[in-house]
């Protein structure tokens, strides 16, 4: 039986396998023939496939264990190593990553991954610097400096995962700054931090989408902006819930302009149904929390009412999203 190459390819293979299984489930194709059909379509590995599998498995495992052994060896000798050797090791790895990126070019995937690896190693270099010179600096400074140093590479690489790392570092710097500097002096409550994080990330999301709408090609093909929006929405929801249950302060009112801005931007500017769904879910959680706090939670019977409220709100949100989706489909 000749093996076919036409059926190969990950997504095509999955579809074909699913179709063959559906044919078996509906009785069109006898069950005992599904295996042969999958082999005929090249969707089951043959001897060559298995040899390749073991090749890669042993190669990958062997290389990983060997590298781990080398790293452990350096870890064992770390304290005895001179400071220049320590710096040289990390800088050599960074240089190798950058050279590989330069050689392959930043338009290739390997080049982009290499520059990303180099950007990650910048953090390792800063950590070694802090360890060697015992600067005593707060850790928020390390992450902030790290973000600043790799910002240029992120612009050059035009690689969404690297931008996501940059956004992550900015978030970590902000949160550590809060813990180590702001809280130590002013003692504000945690809800203010989440409001700050939510606002910063919403701004990043809007900037990301605006650049995408202005034709930055590499941004238009990625959906990482939604990850930032999801993080912003999550922090905003957490802020609202904390204010409702713990602080009972006026800060919770800041939730309204925050979700309002996110909703308005996603509805009017980007027509992003995923972000609209996130905002609606956040609103359901916040509204339910407010209802529980105002109407009380000591009487178990009230939870029946709260449950029905959530059911109604979810159904309404889903119906609204479907309607918006249909309207946009008709009038793009």
């Amino acid at each position: 039986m000749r093996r076919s190459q036409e059926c190969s390819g990950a997504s095509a293979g999955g579809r074909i396998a699913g179709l063959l299984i559906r044919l078996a489930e509906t009785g069109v194709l006898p069950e005992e023939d599904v295996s042969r059909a999958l082999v005929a379509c090249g969707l089951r590995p043959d001897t060559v496939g298995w040899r390749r599998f073991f090749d890669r498995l042993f190669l990958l495992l062997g290389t990983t264990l060997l590298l781990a052994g080398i790293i452990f060896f350096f870890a064992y000798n770390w304290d005895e190593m001179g400071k220049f050797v320590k710096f040289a090791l990390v800088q050599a790895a960074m240089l190798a990553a950058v050279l590989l990126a330069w050689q392959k070019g930043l338009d290739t995937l390997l080049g982009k991954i290499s520059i990303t690896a180099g950007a990650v190693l910048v953090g390792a270099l800063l950590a070694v610097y802090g360890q060697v010179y015992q600067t005593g600096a707060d850790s928020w400074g390390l992450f902030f400096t790290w973000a600043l140093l790799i910002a240029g590479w992120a612009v050059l690489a035009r690689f969404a995962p690297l931008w996501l790392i940059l956004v992550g570092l900015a978030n970590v710097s902000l949160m550590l700054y809060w813990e180590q500097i702001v809280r130590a002096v002013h003692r504000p409550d945690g809800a203010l931090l989440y409001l700050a994080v939510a606002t910063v990330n919403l701004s990043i999301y809007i900037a990301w989408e605006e650049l995408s709408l202005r034709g930055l090609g590499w941004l238009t093909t990625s959906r990482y902006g939604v990850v930032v929006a999801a993080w912003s929405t999550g922090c905003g929801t957490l802020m609202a819930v904390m204010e409702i249950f713990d602080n009972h302060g006026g800060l919770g009112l800041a939730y309204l302009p925050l979700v309002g801005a996110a909703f308005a931007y996603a509805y009017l500017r980007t027509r992003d149904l995923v972000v609209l769904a996130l905002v609606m879910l956040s609103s359901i959680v916040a509204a339910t929390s407010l209802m529980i706090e105002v109407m009380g939670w000591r009487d178990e019977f009230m939870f029946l009412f709260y449950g029905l409220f959530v059911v109604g709100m979810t159904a309404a949100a889903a119906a609204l999203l479907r309607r918006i989706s249909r309207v946009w489909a008709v009038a793009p």
Partner: protein
Amino acid sequence: MSGVARDRIVEILAAAGVLPAGSEATVRSALSGDDTREHSPWYIQALLVAGAWLAAILFTVFFFGSLLSGVKNPMVHLTLGLSVCGGSAWIMRVKPEARFLVQFALALGIAGQLLFGYGFGDLAGEFFAAALAVTVINTALIPLARQRLQTFLSVIIASGALLTALWDLKWWMGTNLLALLLGLGVTAAWELKPWYVRRQWRPAGYGLAMSFFGVLHLSLLPASDIFRYRGQETSWWITTTGLWVLLALVMVRIAGSLGHGWKSRPVLMLLAGVGVLAVTAHNSPGILGALLVLGLGYQRRDRLLSGLAVLFLAVFLSAYYYHLELTLLEKSAALAASGAVLLLFAFLLKKTAPTGESVHA
């Protein structure tokens, strides 16, 4: 699916002699039949799922709060819990398309199981009896509800309940047997034909794999922790030996399906290699277990299963080397030596394995 692609598939299947005589038109028609069901986009489904679970949690608080404070009779708890489970299974069975309702029923069903287990345990006076009852209920829910997420969760909950029953009975050997049973279950689910063909059983296959890895995770715990029973040895060699046998059988079966006898050199080398691994890592059955699942995932070209296996292989390998009672220098030597051995093995296998032509079934 495009007409050209559909015709090509039918040609390939016909050339392979797989299609029954005269069925090409039927197959073409079945492949071209568009699914007329309207599917909600994934973000609406996610919103419905989140809302359903939130609502179910609130209903459960009402349900449990008012019931448990007012009614102390365990028989009532048991009966009510069973009724809730039955009702949720019925909803999932008759309304499989209603996403919100199905998720809501699923969440309530879990609450019903808790209530049932609570009542049963109270009635029997034994924790392990409640755990066994939960196992039975979940096993029954799989064919009753016929819902994929329910199937997945039921397998995991049933396995977890069995494990807690063994813990309550302080029967260490039982944990080894449970691990082996789950390994057998994973192999049966992914290797035997009738299972993988039926789509609704695939979640059971994933559930078995997750439960299998979950139980094997216990081998990562220090022996001095919860599984030191009355001075019993907390050794995993039984599981490791059993998994080595299972892995060997699977390898021989797959090799056989490709036209290679078990006495062929590459197969013997692989069996020997796995045997050496079993001996050196006799208290870390997770490594063999992950390799077994990885092989099954590759055989079925199932990326999710393979991905899970790769993830857990990394976890088990890391834990194995972490727990070695050696200095950092000795560990670095052990790691480097293991890596070198594997690379040598890869080289030897390349020398002894067949050349690049396919083996036709």
